[in-house]
């Protein structure tokens, strides 16, 4: 990681990586969604409604993985003072918030025909909504701190403490009685039949590659912005 501390070296890797991730992400997402919408059978109970799965589950995964990445960047910022950690945190937050929002919206659309309700305050839904609000808080805090010329330590503390919500989201369906069903995919296997399951990993990988590409683009944009600001300051001083 510390070899990437030099922004020039980071950019040398990030520039080609962005294009590669974009292409791979678009291809895998297209394969997953086309497979899920056109080539899988409907569910025995829910019928065609089950196809929301191919958007809902990858979004939920990225909403949570995004905060895990923010927490990792926070540790790297607080402990090693990695110069790109705060940049990474600020780049991840909007992408994570977007996927958390997509997860909540598709979940709501899915809930109406299956459960009979757009929204219910059960453990899983509520903890996921809290994650979305945490993202908004992090975005505001990190932006305010950057504006004041801070190093991003406050945002890093917030990112670390917010990570507590991740196990709560994961175990909410086990700890409490919820309307949301328990997880289908675990370490020991899946309770989704193989004929319905196969496009899901494609979509999940595709979404993940697109997420990573968005983060890299935002990081590059912020590094460029910092350089512009420095150059303007120098020009103004002369």
């Amino acid at each position, binding site marked *: 990681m510390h070899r990437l501390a030099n922004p020039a070296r980071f950019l040398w890797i990030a520039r080609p990586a962005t294009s590669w991730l974009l292409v791979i992400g678009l291809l895998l997402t297209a394969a997953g969604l086309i497979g899920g919408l056109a080539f899988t*059978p*409907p*569910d*025995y*109970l*829910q019928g065609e409604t*089950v196809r929301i*799965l191919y958007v809902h589950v990858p979004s939920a995964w990225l909403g949570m993985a995004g905060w895990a990445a923010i927490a990792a960047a926070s*540790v790297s910022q*607080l*402990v*090693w003072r990695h110069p790109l950690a705060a940049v990474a945190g600020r780049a991840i937050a909007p992408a994570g918030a977007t996927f958390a929002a997509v997860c909540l919206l598709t979940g709501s659309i899915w809930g109406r*025909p*299956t*459960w*009979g*309700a757009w929204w*219910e*305050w*059960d*453990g899983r839904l509520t903890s996921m909504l809290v994650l979305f609000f945490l993202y908004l808080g992090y975005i505001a805090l990190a932006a305010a701190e950057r504006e004041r010329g801070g190093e991003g330590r406050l945002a890093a503390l917030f990112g*670390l*403490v917010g*990570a*507590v919500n991740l*196990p*709560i989201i994961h175990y909410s369906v086990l*700890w*409490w*009685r*919820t*309307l949301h*069903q*328990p*997880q*289908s995919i675990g370490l020991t296997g899946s*309770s*989704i*039949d193989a*004929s*319905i*399951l196969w496009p899901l990993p494609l979509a999940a990988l595709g979404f993940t590659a697109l997420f990573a590409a968005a983060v890299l683009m935002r990081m590059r944009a912020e590094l460029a912005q910092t350089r512009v600001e420095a150059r303007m300051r120098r020009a103004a001083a002369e």
Partner: protein
Amino acid sequence: MIARPKHQRLVLVLLALAAVLGAALLAMWGLRDRAAYFYTPADVAAGKAQPRTAIRLGGMVERGSVLRDPDGITTRFVVDDGEARVPVLFRGIVPDLFQEGSGVVAEGQLAPGGTFVADNILAKHDERYMPPQLGNQAAEQRAAKTLQR
């Protein structure tokens, strides 16, 4: 021995993370009864649910218990959790996934006679997804078993 600042910070961060996680887990443990989304029939039998207060009752719709009144809008069924059973009365439209032998959450209140009067019904499904042929096989097997009995 003076630790390097980097290591000091690492230890501090790890300690803080462990403390916050521990606090959150304790809080969630304290919430485990109160954060439950619904009461089960066993809770009702144990007297945990107050009559005439708005609660949710969740469990399985007992097989063969669904009766539709001739007025076309009243549905009666029994919610069962393997330990206790509670009769439910509901006037309204049930969701598509509401069926015998599958999960249900009813919102309403317990009438003094022990019947749960629901004003909303939510269907709860499980974590299994499969194509219709397999689902039909499962349903046919269940039907065959019921017939044998």
